């Protein structure tokens, strides 16, 4: 099977060994516009896989094909405190001053145009995470990697962020890999859910009912029960 034209991520037989094989032959294909959530208990290699796709870590074995333009939103905003907000947004730019307008546009999308000149340490946790999101989208990436980006937010901010992320991803249409251990979040946002267990992808289910999804929907409840069972919770 060769990757078709619209395939943006093609990972095959990915292995990564620390004291044990955390990833032991993972296969993952993503097309443009796919929104895939990766679930799994702590220590199952979710973040390791994400870091390999980001290019922050190298696989020991296997082949990985990813878009050159890719970005990551981490659990922490990871803004540079010594750079103003708009400078953080165009952090990777070859010519930040020229791209200032782009930065402000991206900040407008996350509702933070007014904070363009602020210092990161003056932002709230939710605001900082929105800046991180603007920074991730400003380059129009082919692949957006989200490493538990909502985990550190308070419950109310998290709900708002879910909506914002869903809306922005629809507009920019990158392939998305969301690493999370929140089953509800995965069902709310993604089109396909994977569970990583014992070094390989154990469960691969499509979430095929329409968005926006409600937690009270019987299909939602059924899928959640199924996933929690596979995660060994219920």
């Amino acid at each position, binding site marked *: 099977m060769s990757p078709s034209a619209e395939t943006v991520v093609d990972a095959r037989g990915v292995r990564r060994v620390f004291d044990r094989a955390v990833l032991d032959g993972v296969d993952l294909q993503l097309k443009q516009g796919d929104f895939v959530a990766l679930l799994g208990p702590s220590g199952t290699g979710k973040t390791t896989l994400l870091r390999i796709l980001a290019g922050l870590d190298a696989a020991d074995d296997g082949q990985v094909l990813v878009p050159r333009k890719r970005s990551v939103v*981490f659990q922490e905003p*990871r803004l540079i*405190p010594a750079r103003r907000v708009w400078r953080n947004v165009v*952090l*990777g730019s070859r010519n930040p001053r020229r791209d200032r307008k782009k930065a402000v546009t991206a900040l407008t999308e996350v509702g933070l145009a007014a904070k363009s000149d602020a210092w990161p*340490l003056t932002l709230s946790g939710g605001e900082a995470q929105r800046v991180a999101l603007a920074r991730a989208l400003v380059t129009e990436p082919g692949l957006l990697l989200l490493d538990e980006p909502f985990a550190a937010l308070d419950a109310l901010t998290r709900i708002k962020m879910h909506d914002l992320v869903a809306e922005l991803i629809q507009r920019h249409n990158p392939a998305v890999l969301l690493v999370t251990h929140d089953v509800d979040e995965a069902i709310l946002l993604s089109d396909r859910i994977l569970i990583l267990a014992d070094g390989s992808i154990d469960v691969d289910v499509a979430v095929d009912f329409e968005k926006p999804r409600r937690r009270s929907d019987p299909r939602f409840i059924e899928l959640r029960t199924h996933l929690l069972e596979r995660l060994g919770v219920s």
Partner: protein
Amino acid sequence: MTTSELVPPPVKKAGPALESLTARGRQGRLRNVTRTWRGRVLRIAVPVGLIVLWQLSSVLGWADEFTLPPPSRIIAAYQELWANGDIQAALPISLKRAGTGLAIGVSLGLVLGLFAGLWKIGEEIFDAPLQMLRTIPFIAVVPLFITWFGIGETPKLVLIAAATIFPMYLNTYHGVRGVDKKLIESGQTFGLRGWRLAARVILPTALPAALTGLRYAAGVSLLALVLAEQINAREGIGYLVNNANQNQRPDIVIAGILIYALLGIVVDVLMRVAEHFALPWRPRVAIG
């Protein structure tokens, strides 16, 4: 009675289970105000009291004026030094010495610190020798410097430079190495490598540490200045002090020492102001 009974467990004399916590009340608030004012008054009153005591010691004849000249004599000494033009001549020379030595030491420390911080090879070459040299007290090398560089201006500058390299090097190196790895990763994620990664992520984040190094170095430069000016100085504050010592003028000696102290305060305040303007992103950088 010989019948044995079950002994009940000793009951601790229990107080009431509930305790009433008193509100601060009017009196308590008043006490807080009194405490604040007590603090303010004592902070000023104690130093002033000590100076008055010092003055009294000579008025009442507790201390010999030659051993410990009173504050009034020291003020008179300043007037004398000013009228002769001695201070105006000495101060710029001492400041220039400290400044030149500091500039040399700080530049070297900064370059070495950046080199060792940013490049593994730099660390491998420079860190071990600098860490070894750092343990030598710079006071101990004075005789050696006199043998090597004579008694002119050179050994003084070399001494000040040598003393200031280390605080600058150590703080810069640790500042660069201490940049959160997560921030570096986030830069790498957005395609920053090499020089751009250093300029946009590492150096600005390491700047506070480098400025701390600069502040320490500035303080050390004054220490080294005092020492350097003991080496046969022919001009400068140290010369004034040594000369006064030989002429048995303890008032001028104390006046000179106080000038050194004042320089220390001025340098520290200047450094804090510089930090305030160089690090606008840090919340609440206090001045003074």
